């Protein structure tokens, strides 16, 4: 495209326009109030029935540092991050030039006029907008301008990309329903942006939106919010937490929900306790104390908090006390990149704490699973009498995703083996750590009941729960705990397997990587004719399905968002060398959510199919039916 400044071009009808297949990146300074404007964009596309996703790339800072928000609309339903940006909104002077330089040829750029970007590249379409002038006209009060300035770019994009203005107004009304004054101002700003674009640019962008019908009945939600609803529905009663990005919004959402829906109507009192603890050690200690007494208790944290929870997790494992722990994973050893995403805590969490320890982990991929696995975690933790981790990540937890609405839980709660009178009579005698059922899970008693008391300890104990330093007592206990972990295999959610009949290649992924795999499989097929089967892990420990899947294929690629192939390391601990020899890795650890292009290119390179970008097949993408997540 040779156009440099469409403002100078005569209005012409757009031909060969790409419809419902584009990504918009909004580059702003954090603290400048762009969140509402970006939500309006996502919501309007969603309301138009177009599959959409949003990724917030923000700094660990309150105000003044660069932040980028990427919105992807895709008619095939691909919601993973797209590597290439089609349309840039450049509002940040500090990053604007670099942002423009990284664009693919043909991209469009809306920018704040004084930034004067149009001379930078001849192969882009530039749309300068005098934001200060426009905002001054609609918002006389200079102090409020910051809050409405960004809405102007919504109006400009509405015109350029054909995102219906009516839907934007609807989205804005929903967003600011309780702030009438802000709503009026933002409505004016929206209109001002639209009118300016219409009057100035005439020609629309080479990307555009058109109404579809894929989002009816669906919801837009963040994973931490979905998990909080899951905890609410799981009947959690004790919550202890310590603020940490990207986990905080889970407990904060939960606080809001509990205050609304868990106050006893008759007395006005709370059927829950939520404590902001002094640190993550105390948070998990409170969870263990509460679970020991029989409450459903949980905490939520991220990597640094997981490290601190190590000792208590070992206690929970060895003394056999339930605990539900969410890990909203972020990047890095140490403080790392607190506001970026990764799947880097798998190995350290699976084996958290000293001595021989193993912990079940659930691996949600979607909003539905953030919700349902929260409930699963409580059931499993009480059934297995051990800490259970839910391994979400920043991408899942803090970004907005489309989802089918959540179904009401039809199953009763599984409170596990809590001894009652009838069971005691059936068993005849009771020992706290006796394996009477052969599944490695003993019966426990709760305080404040008629059942016998025992002394819970992290020190050596025998089957009766008495202090013991005897080697045979210790070994018998450890062997039973290993049996219990094998029982966990039969209780955790099974993987989702899609076996393609002739595929020699298998892909394995989990968590947020799933969405890039869906798209990557289509690319592999379209660009190189490479058919792939796919297994999505939903939990650790692994079930038999994993070995069976590896057996069916010549080579298996495990795709994960960490440097050290941590999931493969866990597989290596239990798969035989013949199977492990078939396993290869595709790794992504830049802190940005993984994208399909990276997976496709890596698999093709390892397969020796260097002509990666072969002509796309005409056929529609086979996996595109997965519109809007599950």
């Amino acid at each position, binding site marked *: 495209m040779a156009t440099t400044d469409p403002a100078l071009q005569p209005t012409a009808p757009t031909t060969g326009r790409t419809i419902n297949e584009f990504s918009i990146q909004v580059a702003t300074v954090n603290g400048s109030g762009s969140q509402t404007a970006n939500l309006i964009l996502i919501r309007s596309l969603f309301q138009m029935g177009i599959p959409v996703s949003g990724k917030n790339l923000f700094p660990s800072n309150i105000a003044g540092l660069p932040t980028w928000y990427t919105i992807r609309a895709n008619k095939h339903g691909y919601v993973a991050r797209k590597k290439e940006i089609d349309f840039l909104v450049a509002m940040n002077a500090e990053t604007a030039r670099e942002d423009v330089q990284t664009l693919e040829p043909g991209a469009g750029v809306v920018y704040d006029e004084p930034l004067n970007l149009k001379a930078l590249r001849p192969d882009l379409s530039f749309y300068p907008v005098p934001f200060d002038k426009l905002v001054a006209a609609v918002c006389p009060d200079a102090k409020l301008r910051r809050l409405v300035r960004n809405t102007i770019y919504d109006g400009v994009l509405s015109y350029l990309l054909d995102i219906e203005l009516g839907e934007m107004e609807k989205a804005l009304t929903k967003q600011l329903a309780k702030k009438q004054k802000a709503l009026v101002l933002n409505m004016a700003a929206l209109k001002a942006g639209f009118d300016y674009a219409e009057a100035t640019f005439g020609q629309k962008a080479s990307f555009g939106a058109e109404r579809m019908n894929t989002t009816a*009945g*669906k*919801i*837009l*939600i963040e994973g931490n*919010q979905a998990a909080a609803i899951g905890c609410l*529905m*799981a*009947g959690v*009663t*004790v919550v*202890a937490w310590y603020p940490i990005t990207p986990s905080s919004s889970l407990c904060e959402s939960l606080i809001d*929900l509990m205050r609304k*829906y*868990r106050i*006893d109507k008759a*007395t*006005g*009192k*709370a*059927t*829950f*306790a939520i*404590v902001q*603890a*002094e*640190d993550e*050690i*105390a*948070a*998990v*200690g*409170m*969870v*263990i*104390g*509460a*679970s*020991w*007494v*029989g*409450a459903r*208790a949980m905490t939520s944290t991220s990597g640094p908090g997981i490290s601190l929870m190590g*000792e*208590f997790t070992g206690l929970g494992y060895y003394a056999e006390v339930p605990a539900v722990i969410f890990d909203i994973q972020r990047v890095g050893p140490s403080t790392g990149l607190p506001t970026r995403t990764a799947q880097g805590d798998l190995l350290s969490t699976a084996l958290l704490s000293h001595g021989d320890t193993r912990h079940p982990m659930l691996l949600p991929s979607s909003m539905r699973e953030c919700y349902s696995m929260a409930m699963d975690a409580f059931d499993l933790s009480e059934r297995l009498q051990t800490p259970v981790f839910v391994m979400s990540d920043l991408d899942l937890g803090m970004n907005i995703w489309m989802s089918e*609405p*959540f179904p009401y*839980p039809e199953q009763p*709660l599984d409170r596990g083996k809590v001894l009652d009178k009838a069971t005691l009579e059936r068993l005849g005698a009771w020992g706290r750590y006796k394996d009477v059922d052969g599944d490695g899970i003993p019966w426990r*008693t709760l*305080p*404040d009941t*008629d059942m016998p*008391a025992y*002394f*819970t*300890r*992290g*020190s050596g104990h025998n089957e009766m729960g008495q*202090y013991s330093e005897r080697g045979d007592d210790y070994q018998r206990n450890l062997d039973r705990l290993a049996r219990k972990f094998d029982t966990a295999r039969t209780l955790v959610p099974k993987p989702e397997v899609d076996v393609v009949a002739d595929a020699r290649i298998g892909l394995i992924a989990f968590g947020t990587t799933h969405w890039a795999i869906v798209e990557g499989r289509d690319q592999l097929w379209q660009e190189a004719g490479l058919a792939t089967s796919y297994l999505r892990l939903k939990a650790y420990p692994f079930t038999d399905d994993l070995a069976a899947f590896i057996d069916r294929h010549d080579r298996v690629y495990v795709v994960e968002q960490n440097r050290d192939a941590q999931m493969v390391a866990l597989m290596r601990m239990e798969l035989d060398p013949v199977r492990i020899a078939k396993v290869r890795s595709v790794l992504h650890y830049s802190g940005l959510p993984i994208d399909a292009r990276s997976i496709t290119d890596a698999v093709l390179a390892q397969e020796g199919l260097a002509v990666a970008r072969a002509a796309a097949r005409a056929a529609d993408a086979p996996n595109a039916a997965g519109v809007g997540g599950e």
Partner: protein
Amino acid sequence: MTTSTGAAPSPGRKLNRIGLDVSQYRGGKTTLCAGCGHNAISERIIEACFDLGVDAKKVLKLSGIGCSSKSPAYFLSQSHGFNSVHGRMPSVATGALLANKTMAAIGISGDGDTGAIGIGQFVHLMRRNLPMVYIIEDNGCYGLTKGQFSPTADVGSTLKNGVVNDLPPIDTCIMAIELGATFVARSFSGDKKQLSALLKAAMSHKGTAMLDVLSPCVTFNDHEGSTKSYSYVKDHEEPLADLSFVPYFEDIAIEHEEGTTREVVLHDGSTIVLRKLDHDYDPTNKAEALRVVRETAGRGEYATGLLFIDQHKRDFCTTLNLVDEPLAALPVERTRPSRAVLELLMDHQR
């Protein structure tokens, strides 16, 4: 409240108000050193629970790690106990009591468990005023790892091998008072009468009752040069008042001369009677308490007895406005919102 017990009381023995004899409050045989102050404290706890007619089924015993923290195994074998991790008992107790606020909790810690590794959790327990009895069995050293100094050791105090402590001690009572604990006491494992009265008062208090009990380590810290030895503490104990406890269920008229005693009435109607000694000490005066404890310590003495009490501050369970029933016992009908609530939440996201 259940009052189920183990064996029937043996005939001819003294029974308490719920018909139990003292043996039913005992625990396992101690494995601590003969003469250890901690064993004396366990005995006082057993007596106090017997005298008060405590239902052991309604008690939780908690501890951290160390010699002190072993002791919950040596009393109240019919109560659930939790020997947790080093310095972190406060958080376990917090979770436990939030899960079931109808339980009474006795936490046993040590001076290392509280003053060193656990100082953070101790601080926040005191702040929250969690309703529990928190006992520090304070011997100024780490017994289980063979006698290293702990943070409550005094400047100039020596180890057996002659090493001199050159860092100032942490005074857990001053900290507790400053931080908002509502019952703060110091006592001595060898002062049977005072400790017994304090324990009963602490168990009757609604809020955090923090007792720092000087409890000499007969193996590693009972020598000349130690300020936590049995003889040193015995010689330097300065009771602030002659203390007795009258439980709510005993109808005893207290006879005293005008102006010689103070009475502190507790939440359950029990009374602490403080008979004046040298000075008229008012344990409800925070500033006065801090001044007296500091001054006494400055003289190398230990002010003992009830140092501070505030019967009116809200305890943590009240602050959180918990329902009357234990959270752990709530049925699913009260903890899982209805289908309509979920539908409403879904509508918000559309």
